C-alpha cells in the first residue's frame, strides 16, 4: 500500500490558501506593466490569471505540460515578433511577465511558489525602469505587502488574511530603516542608473526645433508639466516670464527650423555679472530628449555641462533624458539685449516669389516711412509698430483651432484672409513681414507664464504654456523681443491661455477648471509630486553630498559612505536583535537552571531535545550514564516539583542549582 502511494504525493504540495495568495499577488505585480507591454501580452496575462483563478476555484488540476510548453513557445515567439530581439528592457519585462503567468499555471509545489514570489519581486523592480512616479512607488509598496504575505504563506504557519497582511506590513516596516540608510548613503553614480538602449526615450513631449502651423497649438492641449521653478524671492510679474527655448531662423514658406549651424558660445560679458537686478531661480526640468535648458530671458549664467549660445539659448551638452535641476540667473527685459549682430544669410533669408501681398504691403510701408518725417534709424522701429498696429486694428482672432493654411502663400492667406491663428501663426507672419521689410528677425519658441502652486510656492510651467514670439534687430538697441500675440490677445500674456481663448474652445485638462477644490487638490498633489521629484528622484551625487555634509559628514566620498552604511546597518541590526531578544519572555530562574543542565550535558552528547519532558530526559541520561542515576533522579524530581508541582521557594531552587553545578560529568569513555 505504501508503495502505491510513493509516487503520487509530492514533497511539499502547495495548499489552497498558498495558491490563493500567489494568484492574488500576481495581478498587482503585473498591473504597472500593462501600460507598456504589447497589447497581446496584456490580454494574455488577463486571460491566464482568470484561467488560473477558475482552476483554483474549481479545485481543478493544473493544465497539462504539453499545453504549457506550447504556450511558452508561442509567448517567446510573440515577444520576438513584437520587439525583433530579446535584449534590452522592454522584451525583458515582457518575458518576465510571460514566465510569471506560465509559472502560476504550472505551480504545484512550495518550490514553484518561491519561484513565483521571487519573479514577482523582480518584476516589481523592473517597472521602475519605465517610470519613477510617486503613484507607482505607492502602488509598489502595496504590491510588496501582498507579495511578502504570499511569501510568508509559504512558510509553515496558518494565519488569517488580515493577520498575514499585518505581519507582512510589519516586516516591511522593519526593513524601512535599512532602506533609508541605503538610500541616503549608497554612493550615487552620475547620470541615470540604467543606460537603456534607444527604446527608453521615445514618447517624451515638448518643443522641437521645427515650428509649423499647429505644432504649438497641439502642445497647448497637454497639461503635462514642462518644468518647475523655485525663485529666490518673489516670482516676477507674469508678462516678463518668457522662458526661452529654441530659436528658429530658417523659413521654407510653411515651417520654421533652427537650421544646422553649430551653436556658438557667447562670450561672457564681465559687466553683466555685476548687475544687481538679476533674478536667481532653480529649474527642475522634465526630460524632453533635447538639448535646451529653459531659462528666463535673458540668461546670464549657464549651469555646468551647458553653454549659452550667442543667440541666448542655454544648451546642455547631453540631451535631457532624465529630470534635472539647475540653478539659473537671468536679467529680465529691463535692458536692451546686445548679443551677436544679425547675419544676413540667416536672419534675413527669404524664399523669393511667395506671399506677394505681404511683400507689397511692407514695401509700401517702407516707402511711406522713407519719405516721411522720421526716416532713417527710427524707420525700422516704426515698421515694427505699424505691423503690431495692423494686428491690433484689423480683425485678428486668437484661437486654438485656426483654419488650415495651404499652398505656398500661407502668410498672405493668414494676414489677408483667415486672420485666425495661434501664437505660432502670429510670430511666423510677423518675422516673415519684418524680413521682407529688410529688418533682421527670428522666431523664438519657449514657454510664457506659468502657474504658482500655492502649496509649495513653486512655479509650474506646463506644455500648455508653450509659446512663440519674435525678435527683431534694431540698429541702436540690438535684438529686441516683440510678441505679436500680445498685440492680438493681451490677456494671453497677462492671464494665461484660458482667458485669451474664446468660449467653447477646447482647453487642456485642468487649465480652465473653475472647481476650486479640484484645483486645490491638484496643487496639493503637484506639490507632493514635486517634493518626490526633488528629494527622492533628484537625490543625485550633488544632493547626496549636500545632505551628508549637512548631517556632519566631512568630505563624503564613496569609501566613507560605504563605511557609514555598513556601520549603521550593523548597529540597526544589533538594536533590532536586542529588542527581539528582550521581547521574548524572560526565563524563570528554574528554567535557567534546567537549561544549564542541558548545556552541561551537551558536552557528553546528551543535550535535551526541546520537546523532551524532564522525566524522559532523566531516564535517557541515566541509560547513557548509569553513574549519574542518583543525581539525575534528584534533579528531575526537584525540577518537576518546582515547575510542574506545588514546590516553591528559594531553598529547593538553590538545591537544584547546587545539584546541577555539582554534577560530575566524566569525559566520554
Amino acid at each position: 500500500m505504501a508503495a502505491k502511494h510513493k509516487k503520487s504525493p509530492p514533497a511539499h504540495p502547495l495548499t489552497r490558501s498558498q495558491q490563493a495568495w500567489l494568484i492574488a499577488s500576481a495581478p498587482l505585480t503585473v498591473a504597472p506593466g500593462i501600460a507598456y507591454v504589447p497589447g497581446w501580452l496584456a490580454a494574455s496575462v488577463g486571460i491566464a490569471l482568470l484561467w488560473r483563478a477558475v482552476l483554483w476555484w474549481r479545485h481543478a488540476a493544473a493544465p497539462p505540460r504539453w499545453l504549457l510548453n506550447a504556450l511558452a513557445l508561442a509567448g517567446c515567439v510573440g515577444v520576438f515578433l513584437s520587439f525583433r530581439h530579446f535584449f534590452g528592457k522592454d522584451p525583458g519585462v515582457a518575458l518576465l511577465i510571460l514566465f510569471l503567468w506560465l509559472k502560476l499555471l504550472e505551480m504545484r509545489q512550495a518550490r514553484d511558489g518561491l519561484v513565483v514570489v521571487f519573479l514577482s519581486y523582480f518584476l516589481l523592480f523592473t517597472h521602475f525602469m519605465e517610470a519613477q512616479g510617486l503613484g507607482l512607488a505607492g502602488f509598489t509598496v502595496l504590491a510588496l505587502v501582498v507579495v511578502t504575505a504570499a511569501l510568508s504563506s509559504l512558510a509553515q504557519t496558518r494565519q488569517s488574511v488580515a493577520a498575514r497582511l499585518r505581519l507582512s506590513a510589519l516586516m516591511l516596516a522593519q526593513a524601512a530603516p535599512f532602506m533609508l540608510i541605503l538610500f541616503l548613503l549608497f554612493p550615487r553614480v552620475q547620470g541615470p542608473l540604467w543606460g537603456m538602449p534607444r527604446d527608453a526615450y521615445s514618447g517624451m513631449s515638448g518643443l522641437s526645433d521645427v515650428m509649423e502651423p499647429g505644432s504649438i497649438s497641439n502642445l497647448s492641449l497637454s497639461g503635462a508639466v514642462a518644468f518647475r521653478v523655485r525663485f529666490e524671492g518673489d516670482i516676477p510679474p507674469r508678462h516678463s516670464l518668457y522662458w526661452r527655448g529654441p530659436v528658429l531662423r530658417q523659413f521654407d514658406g510653411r515651417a520654421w527650423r533652427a537650421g544646422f549651424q553649430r551653436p556658438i558660445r557667447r562670450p561672457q560679458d564681465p559687466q553683466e555679472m555685476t548687475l544687481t537686478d538679476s533674478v536667481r531661480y532653480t529649474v527642475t526640468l522634465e526630460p524632453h530628449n533635447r538639448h535646451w535648458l529653459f531659462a528666463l530671458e535673458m540668461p546670464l549664467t549657464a549651469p555646468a555641462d551647458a553653454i549659452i549660445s550667442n543667440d541666448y539659448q542655454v544648451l546642455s551638452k547631453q540631451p535631457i533624458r532624465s529630470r534635472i535641476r539647475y540653478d539659473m540667473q537671468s536679467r529680465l527685459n529691463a535692458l536692451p539685449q546686445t548679443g551677436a549682430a544679425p547675419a544676413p544669410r540667416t536672419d534675413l533669408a527669404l524664399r523669393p516669389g511667395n506671399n506677394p501681398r505681404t511683400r507689397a504691403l511692407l514695401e509700401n510701408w517702407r516707402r511711406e516711412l522713407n519719405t516721411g518725417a522720421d526716416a532713417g534709424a527710427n524707420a525700422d522701429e516704426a515698421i515694427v509698430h505699424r505691423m503690431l498696429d495692423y494686428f491690433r486694428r484689423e480683425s485678428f482672432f486668437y484661437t486654438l483651432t485656426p483654419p488650415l493654411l495651404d499652398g505656398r502663400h500661407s502668410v498672405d492667406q493668414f494676414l489677408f484672409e483667415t486672420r485666425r491663428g495661434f501664437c505660432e501663426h502670429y510670430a511666423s507672419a510677423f518675422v516673415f513681414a519684418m524680413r521682407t521689410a529688410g529688418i533682421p528677425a527670428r522666431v523664438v519658441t519657449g514657454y510664457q507664464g506659468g502657474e504658482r502652486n500655492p502649496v509649495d510656492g513653486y512655479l509650474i510651467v506646463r506644455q500648455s504654456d508653450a509659446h512663440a514670439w519674435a525678435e527683431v534687430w534694431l540698429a541702436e538697441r540690438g535684438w529686441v523681443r516683440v510678441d505679436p500675440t500680445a498685440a492680438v490677445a493681451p490677456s494671453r500674456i497677462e492671464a494665461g491661455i484660458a482667458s485669451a481663448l474664446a468660449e467653447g474652445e477646447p482647453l487642456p485638462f485642468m487649465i480652465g477648471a473653475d472647481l476650486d477644490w479640484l484645483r486645490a487638490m491638484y496643487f496639493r498633489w503637484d506639490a507632493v509630486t514635486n517634493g518626490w521629484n526633488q528629494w527622492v528622484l533628484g537625490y543625485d551625487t550633488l544632493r547626496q553630498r549636500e545632505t551628508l555634509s549637512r548631517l556632519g559628514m566631512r568630505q563624503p566620498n564613496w569609501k566613507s559612505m560605504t563605511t557609514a552604511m555598513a556601520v549603521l546597518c550593523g548597529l540597526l541590526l544589533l538594536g533590532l536583535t536586542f529588542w527581539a531578544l528582550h521581547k521574548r519572555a524572560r526565563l524563570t530562574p528554574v528554567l535557567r537552571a534546567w537549561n544549564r543542565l542541558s548545556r552541561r550535558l551537551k558536552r557528553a552528547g546528551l543535550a535535551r531535545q526541546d520537546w523532551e519532558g524532564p522525566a524522559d530526559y532523566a531516564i535517557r541520561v541515566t541509560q547513557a550514564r548509569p553513574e549519574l542515576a542518583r543525581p539525575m533522579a534528584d534533579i528531575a524530581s526537584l525540577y518537576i516539583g518546582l515547575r510542574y508541582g506545588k514546590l516553591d521557594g528559594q531553598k529547593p531552587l538553590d538545591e537544584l542549582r547546587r545539584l546541577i553545578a555539582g554534577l560530575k560529568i566524566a569525559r566520554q569513555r
Partner: protein
Amino acid sequence: MSDSLMDQTVRQAARVVLGKERQIRLALACLLARGHLLIEDLPGVGKTILAHVLAKSLGLDFHRIQCTADMLPADILGVSIYDRERSTFQFHPGPIFAQLVLVDEINRATPRTQSALLEAMEEHQVTCEGETHLLPRPFFVIATQNPSHQIGTFPLPESQLDRFLMRIEIGYPDPEAERALLGGADRRELVADLGPCMTPENLIELQRSLQNVHVSDALIAYVQALVEHTRRAPDFKTGLSPRAGLALLRAARAWALIDHRDLVLPEDIQAVLPAVAGHRLHPANSAPGAQTAADIATALIGAVPIP
C-alpha cells in the same frame, strides 16, 4: 490505597489481554477522565475482550450492543410500551442502561441510530415520550469500529468522533505475547473467571480525585503551544478545538493518576496525545489513512518545544 486498586486492575487485565498494557492503561485513563472510548481496529485483535475485562475488573454491569444497519434508536435506548393491566405506558430500558456499554461495530449502524446513541452518551440520560431517564453512574461507552474503508459502513462524522475522549488502536500482539496467547487458555473462560478489583464507588471516588492532580502554568502553556501549533501549521486541515485542549488535559490528569503522581508532566500529555488528538486531526495533504495517529502525534510532539 486506591492506587493499588488501579494497579491491580491493570495487572489483571494484562493477564487476559496479553502485551497490551499501554492500551489497557489508556482505556482506564479514559474511564477515569469520564470520557468514552473508541477502539478502531481489525476484527479479532481483542477489542471485545478488552471491554469485557474492564467491566469485570471494575465490577461494572455490562451490556453489549451489536450494531447492524437495520437497528433503530429504540433498540438501544429503550421503548415505552402500553401496559394493559395498569393502563399506562411503561418504559422498557434498552441495552444502553448499563454502567459499561460495549457498542460493537458502531459504524454499521445508520447515522440516525449513531446520533441517538451519541446524544445519550453526551447527556448521560435518555428521553423517551417526554420522560427523562437518567443513565447509571458511572457510565462508560466503549465503541468499536472497523477501519472505515470497509464496505457497507457509515463512518462516524468528525463532529461525532469528537464525542469520544480517546480513540485507540490495539494492533497485533508482539511475537512473545502471541505465543503466550496461542498456548494459553481460552480467553472467554479467563474473562468469566475474573473477579472485580474495585467497586463502582471506588471508581467514582477515583474520578473525583482527578481534580486534585496539579496542573501548573508551565504545563498549561505547553498544552496551549501544542494546540496553537496545530492551528498554525499547514500540515493539518483544521486545528484542535478548545474542547480538544480540555480533553487533552483531562486525559493527561488521569494518566498521571494511574502513574501515582499528583502532578501532570509534559510526558503525560505526550503519552495521551495520540489517543486524544489522533482522531481530531486530519493531515492536510496525504491520503486518508496514510498517516497513523501515532505518526501525527509524533510529528506534533517533535515540532513543539516544551516551554
